[in-house]
């Protein structure tokens, strides 16, 4: 790349990055300072009122570790389940032709098109009948069946040239082997994207855990954040402290997964 082009790219990236960071920066500042300077942020104010008080409060007055644990359990299981189920079903839609395939795929898409407010109560009634209210299973189970993920994996699989599979079939390999040893590795980027999006979705989900969790032992972080917004008054610094903590795991997942975004050139291996 020419030097000029590189400079332009840098400038654009830097500008964009700056715009992206500002609210996050505000969040950081509010989380690490005392509430009295929230609306009067000059550099002196900030430096003079740096404190870890908010975090101390979160861990002493509130049961923060438990909420984090609950969110982790639910999100990890949900993400793992989604990756498995969506990869498998996406593979079928990408490679197998069968009667009513188009219609079933539209059915998948259709489940994404109804606003959640319409389906949440019937879903709640069902989970209640299954006796799964206020359980981890009740929290993660409905979210595992997610058409967005299937759709995504289908697109990735469809973009993979068929040559490799054809060769493997000729060699007598069964479909399970082909799936796990050829298709999944080639779709690493897709899986990484799916992992990030489904983790984020499960982690930030609010309405469903609100209805399903009914004690502290099952409360997830978004519920706790909502509780921190008092009926009459909001303590921003504690709220931002909690928000910051809730953001870190997503960041971690993203940083971990992003290696797979740069898996470099997809070598088709046909050569």
């Amino acid at each position, binding site marked *: 790349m020419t030097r000029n082009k590189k400079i332009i790219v840098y400038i654009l990236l830097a500008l964009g990055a700056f715009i992206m960071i500002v609210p996050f920066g505000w969040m950081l500042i509010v989380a690490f300072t005392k509430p009295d300077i*929230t*609306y*009067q942020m000059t550099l002196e104010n900030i430096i003079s009122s740096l404190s870890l008080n908010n975090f101390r409060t979160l861990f002493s*007055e*509130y049961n923060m570790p438990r909420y984090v644990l609950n969110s*982790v*359990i*639910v999100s*990890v*299981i949900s993400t*793992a389940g989604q990756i498995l189920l969506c990869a498998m079903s996406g593979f079928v839609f990408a490679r197998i032709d069968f009667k009513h395939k188009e219609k079933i795929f539209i059915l998948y898409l259709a489940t994404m098109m109804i606003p959640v407010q319409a389906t*949440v*109560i019937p879903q*709640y*009634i069902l989970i*209640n009948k299954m*006796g*799964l*209210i*206020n*359980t*981890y*299973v*009740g*929290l*993660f189970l409905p979210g595992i069946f997610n058409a967005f993920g299937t759709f995504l994996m289908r697109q990735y699989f469809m973009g993979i040239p068929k040559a490799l599979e054809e060769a493997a079939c000729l060699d007598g390999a069964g479909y399970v082997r082909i799936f796990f040893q050829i298709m999944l590795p080639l779709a690493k980027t897709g899986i990484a994207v799916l992992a990030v999006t489904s983790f984020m979705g499960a982690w930030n989900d609010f*309405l469903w855990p*609100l*209805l399903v969790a*009914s*004690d*502290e032992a099952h409360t997830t972080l978004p*519920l706790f954040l*909502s*509780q*921190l*917004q*008092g*009926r*009459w*008054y*909001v*303590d921003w610094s*504690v709220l931002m402290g909690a928000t910051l903590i809730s953001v870190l795991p997503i960041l971690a997942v993203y940083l971990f997964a992003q290696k797979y975004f740069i898996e470099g050139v997809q070598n088709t291996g046909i050569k």
Partner: protein
Amino acid sequence: MNKKTAAMVLCTVMAAGVLTGCGGAEEKKDGKTTIKYATYSAGPDHLEDLDKMVAEFEKQNPDIKVETEVIGYDDYFTKLQTQASSKTLPDVFEMNYENFNTYAGNGVLLDLTELAEKDEEFSEDMLSGNSYEYFQKDGKLYGLTEKMSDVVMYYNKDLFDEAGLDYPTEDWTWKEELEAAQTLTKEGVYGTYAPVTYNELYKTVVQNGGALFDENGTPTLGSEENIEAFQWMLDKMLEYNVQPTPEQMSGKSPEDMFKNGEVAMIRTGSWMVTTFADTPFEWDIVQEPGNTQKAHHVFADAVVGSAAAKNKEAVWKFIKFMSTDSTAAEIRLDSSWDLPAVNDESVQEKYTSQEKPESREVIFDVMETGIMPPVVDHYSEVQNAINEELNRAIIGEQSGEEALQAAQKKVTDILK
């Protein structure tokens, strides 16, 4: 981390999740009855107080165990609705005056009348004032008032001193408020603040001798007194600008502005006394100025029971405890968790003897001219419809008079 380790971690987490999840709920443990209690007022500041109250209750009633659930106020009724629709309401739960009508009217609340009559240790006058009547419907008792709160006017003494003004007194009317506010308003400071919303409106019109609804619940929004009152609310902002417009507030809450010394007088709740405790300036409270008469907001929260609760005795005992027990009342007062409804003068004394603010007795005084929220069907829809028209007036799309007349039409339609 390599694949194998990752897989093992995953399996362990999943196993842990499933195993913990299969615990399930047990109703009777060691012969104890368990009841479930949902609350919106305990979080985020009063979780410990709630635990103390529950501990005291369990001490007095060793055969009952209480499981609590704390939900944020904004989401509380969403959850409650869903539970009502699938008949899974908690055994006991908090209810506020505005929503009581709907829940009582739809038969999901436990009728407490007989339980109250049969209980020899309970009598009506254990509750102060009229609070026993608040949560009755069609002559039946459905809940006991647990606590009350009201709205008063707070003022920044330092700002008044700087401007050379006398402090507000209980004889003030809107006229005096406006004059003072005009003197107080300067660069970076606004003289006064009151919300311009339905909730504020229903009280403000009464201060001018009007009313939003008549005794039968018919809307009377477009009356002259109402229009005058609403115009006054608008004028403070738009005409005299002694009150900041939403733009001028730039997303800050009025309470935050008061704390920052940007607003000299503010009408807000008695619950703010603790939040304002550590301001760097001196402040006090006073009765709200009325116009032709005085009126103040009074809010009441009750504990109610679910009609489907299994152990009705336990439910009644808990409701009675939260409302009339003296230890519970003490815990409430000590942490300024609103005012207990219990009829006990020592309560008032204890409360007013606390230091800040000087005029603490105002919080009790205003109850005499207190009004409750209007009881009306389709409360939420009505409130939204009125707020919409008020908002249009705030941004200048219509006049105050037009707003109230448009609101009158909409509300009449809704209540048809």
